[in-house]
């Protein structure tokens, strides 16, 4: 589904990603871990197409199509979803209408008709229940005055509404208490299918107790330096990152 080859990227002329290779197949969950500043969020943003992150080499191929030159919205239309580490507050735009616009713009781009209002409402009801979101929330301005946990739940609610092929969860666990973490993870798990894939970016192993990865990659200084199964995450939790750094630098 997703093939990243020798991806290099810089931010404000500073090289952050120095040749990333990653293959994700449908149905898989990949975890990307690594110390602070290793390039995890940059990788997420580059895949989603953020302009400030300049891709300087390599390719990002989604379903046999190179998406590196596409705008963020075009990537979204092809099924890429990024759950933000710090979701943006947008005063004056309600959650419901934001979703309505997002879904209908995506459908328009895909050559489909707008979703009927009744279908939209039904979907909103179902998905908000899945994430245990109070209906009152949906008429509030997007993320404005939401707590950290509410923002993250709202991200996964949006993901549930948009049904992406490839979901990238950037530090979705940060700022969540254990109950919110469980709700969010439960939502993500229910959305998993044999046709979609998830990339979970996290600093801590905790989230991976709930969203169990097929592969764990360790990102360090802009490269994937180690790949293993879910047990690698446990080892990192126990031993920290230093041993990996030592391995690399030895």
């Amino acid at each position: 589904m997703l093939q990243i080859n020798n991806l290099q990227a810089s931010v404000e002329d500073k090289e952050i990603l120095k040749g990333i290779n990653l293959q994700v197949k449908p149905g898989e969950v990949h975890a990307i871990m690594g110390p602070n500043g290793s390039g995890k969020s940059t990788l997420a943003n580059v895949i989603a197409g953020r302009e400030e992150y300049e891709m300087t080499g390599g390719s990002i191929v989604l379903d046999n199509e190179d998406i590196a030159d596409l705008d963020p919205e075009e990537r979204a239309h092809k099924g890429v979803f990024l759950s933000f580490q710090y979701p943006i507050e947008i005063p004056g735009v309600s959650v419901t209408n934001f979703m309505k616009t997002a879904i209908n713009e995506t459908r328009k781009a895909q050559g489909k008709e707008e979703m009927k209002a009744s279908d939209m409402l039904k979907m909103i009801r179902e998905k908000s229940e899945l994430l245990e979101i109070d209906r009152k929330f949906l008429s509030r301005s997007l993320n404005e005055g939401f707590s950290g946990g509410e923002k993250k739940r709202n991200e996964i609610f949006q993901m549930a509404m948009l049904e992406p092929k490839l979901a990238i969860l950037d530090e979705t666990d940060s700022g969540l208490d254990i109950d919110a973490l469980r709700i969010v993870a439960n939502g993500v798990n229910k959305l998993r299918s044999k046709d979609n894939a998830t990339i979970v970016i996290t600093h801590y192993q905790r989230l991976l107790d709930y969203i169990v990865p097929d592969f764990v990659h360790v990102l360090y200084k802009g490269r994937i330096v180690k790949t293993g199964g879910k047990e690698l995450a446990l080892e990192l939790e126990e031993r920290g990152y230093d041993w990996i750094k030592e391995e690399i630098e030895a």
Partner: protein
Amino acid sequence: MSFKDKILSSFIALENEVDTETYAHSLRNEALGNFEKLGVPQRKEEAYKYTSLKSVFNKDYSLFPKKDTAIEYSDIKRFLIHEIDAYRVIFVDGIYSSHLSQTTHDKFDVCLMSSALNNPKYNSVIETYYNKLASQDGLSSLNTAFAREGAYIHIGKNIAVEKPIEIVYFSTGNERALMTQPRNLVVVGENSQVQIIERHQSLSDNEVLTNAVTEIFAAQRAMVDYYKIQNDKLNASLLDHTSVDQRTSSEVRLHTFSFGGSLTRNNLNFYQNGEHCNSLLNGVTIIEGKQHVDHSTLVHHSQPNCESYQEYKQIFDDRAVGVFNGKVLVDKIAQKINAFQQNNNILVSDKATINAKPQLEIFADDVRCSHGCTIGQLDEEALFYMQSRGIGKKEARALLMFAFANSVLESVKIPEIKSRITKLIAKKLQVDIGFDL
């Protein structure tokens, strides 16, 4: 011929056409003298520091349009709030169009300034109200000197006018360059209510300069809800002078939507002359290219226990220029005043300009006056966030801009106007999305 010379010769021509024995004409003579003295405002005057009128006055305007320009309802329907039943007072090149209008003298007067100025039956109203409130500056005087047509609305006591009154001035462009002097008088009696929509619309690409004066009198407990829709073509400029007199417990709400036109100057003066008055001055400006919109507002609190509320949301793209000059004056006896002023601006392009100047002059000591002014840009993070959810950049920008302006739209009481403005904004921002936020 200089503009001033032209004014003089045109005035002589005017005198051949109007009854020179009326009260209104004595005011015209006086006003002409006043204009001769004051002339067109210059940039060296503080009130016009950021708005030069040079380019709008250097054209060779005709002050008397040729008559008999026939236009049909189908030509103008789209400029009307045609979804609703309304009284309509419609002018074509400064002349009243009876076949496009729907007026009444039934329980109240929705009719023509020309008959009010000339028919003795209206003398007492004209002598009490006409030109009593309008500023006596050069441009208003120019209007008074030449005005002979406009909307005359006189509502007696205890009447709730059941449908809105739409006042629309069309210019057909049968003159290469036309200057018009529309004049409106709105007198609303005790306990009465009225809603009014005003618009100036050019139908061709020829030059138009409109110098309009409107006087609004709201008696005790009267309620006036007034909407100015400024979405004219880029060959048209508007100098609008609107003054409002409020008596005890009256409420006057005035919305100005400025999207079109080349240069627009809105002089909006509210005078609170009774206790417990409530004034609302709201505006949305969205302009681009080389458009220029200037809002100069004045709220004069001269009695205690009153409120005023101003909120102007403005968006400027390309090289557009905006001016917001908001003055709040609180007299010494005007205690327990609550005056609020908010002016928020977004500069979409780095070549756009906003000159914002709040002025508060407070002589009373027990008042609440607040003002806030912000100038910002569209949030790039928010744009990326919306794009990552599949909303195109243009649509994302439009949605952010609409959300920014929406607080002003929320105070619009006529749903059809709200939806019309929403559509105008979508069209203005060139997007095909619903904004029903």
